[in-house]
Structures are given as structure tokens and as C-alpha cells.
């Protein structure tokens, strides 16, 4: 694994730390949902970079699975989130 790929993994881990801090710090539920959605995208990016570095097919399958899950989450958001007015 080259030094550039290792730097990319380090940056994605830093992104995860920032997003966890934002998710714990924010008071609004929508902000927390936004941070969690961005965590999903960062997870896809982390698995893709790990596949680029190590060329293990497991990471590619995990990235694909996480993409499908985030797609279903987006559909659930679009269906249920605008209706839950009082709980936000």
C-alpha cells in the first residue's frame, strides 16, 4: 500500500472523528441525521480506498452493500421524515 493511499485512509478516519463529534454536539435531530448520512458516505469511501490499497474483494463487496443500504435509507427518509413533525 503506497503512502498516498495511507494518507487517504488517515484523512477519512479524521473525517469520521469530526462527524462523531458533530453528531454528539448538535442538538437538532436533523443535524444528527445529516452527520450520520455523511458517515455512511465516508464508510463507502473508506472501503473503496481499502480495496484500492489491498485489492481484497471483500472490501469492494462491503462498499457495494453500504451503497445499497444508504439508497434504502434515502428512500425511507423521503417517505417518513417530512411527516414526523412533532418528534423533531
Amino acid at each position, binding site marked *: 500500500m*503506497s503512502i*498516498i*493511499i495511507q*494518507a*487517504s*485512509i488517515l*484523512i*477519512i478516519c*479524521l*473525517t469520521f472523528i*469530526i*462527524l462523531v*463529534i*458533530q453528531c454528539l454536539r448538535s442538538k*437538532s435531530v*436533523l*443535524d444528527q*441525521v*445529516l*452527520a450520520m*448520512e*455523511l458517515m455512511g*458516505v*465516508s464508510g*463507502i*469511501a473508506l472501503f*473503496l*480506498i481499502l*480495496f*484500492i490499497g489491498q*485489492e481484497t*474483494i471483500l472490501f*469492494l463487496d462491503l*462498499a*457495494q452493500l453500504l*451503497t*445499497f443500504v*444508504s*439508497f434504502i*435509507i*434515502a*428512500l425511507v*427518509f*423521503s417517505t417518513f*421524515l*417530512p411527516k*414526523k*413533525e412533532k418528534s*423533531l
Partner: protein
Amino acid sequence: MITLGEIITLLGSIFLLLSAIGLIRMPDFLMRLQAASKASSFGLMLILIGGSMVLDYWQYEVVAATIFIFLLISTPIGAHALAKASNRNQLPIKDSN
């Protein structure tokens, strides 16, 4: 070509970091939503392009195209739903004036 692909991958991860920083730094929810949705999808697409420059597998190209299409569909849907929910709940918007 491999080094160029790795540099593009690094650029994509920097864009993801910038979107996370924008999530902290922006003053109201709609600005945070814009920073999170646009920069993150652009960063992930840079990572996909860089990976296809580094690797020679045709399986990766298929999976990268699948991830690209699903991301192109799911990110605007999620952002639109969140913006609609924030509009209905009347979250505060920072006035620049």
C-alpha cells in the same frame, strides 16, 4: 497513471474532509446540508475515478458504475427530504443582512 489515480483518490478524501468541516463551520442547517451533500458526492466520485485509474479489474468498473448511479440517485433524495423536514419544522435560518 497509477500515481495520478492515487493523487485523485487523495483529492477525493480531502473533499470528504472538507464536507465534514463544512458541517461544523456553517451557521444554519440549509448551508450545512449543501456542504454535506455536494462535497461528499463529489469526493466519492473522485475516489471512484481514481480507483478505476489505479486498478485494471473489470469487476471494479462495474461496481464503481453501480455505486456512482446509486449515489447520484440517493444523495439528492436524502438532501431534499431533510430540507423539506427542516422547512416544515421552521428551523432558524441565519440572515446575512
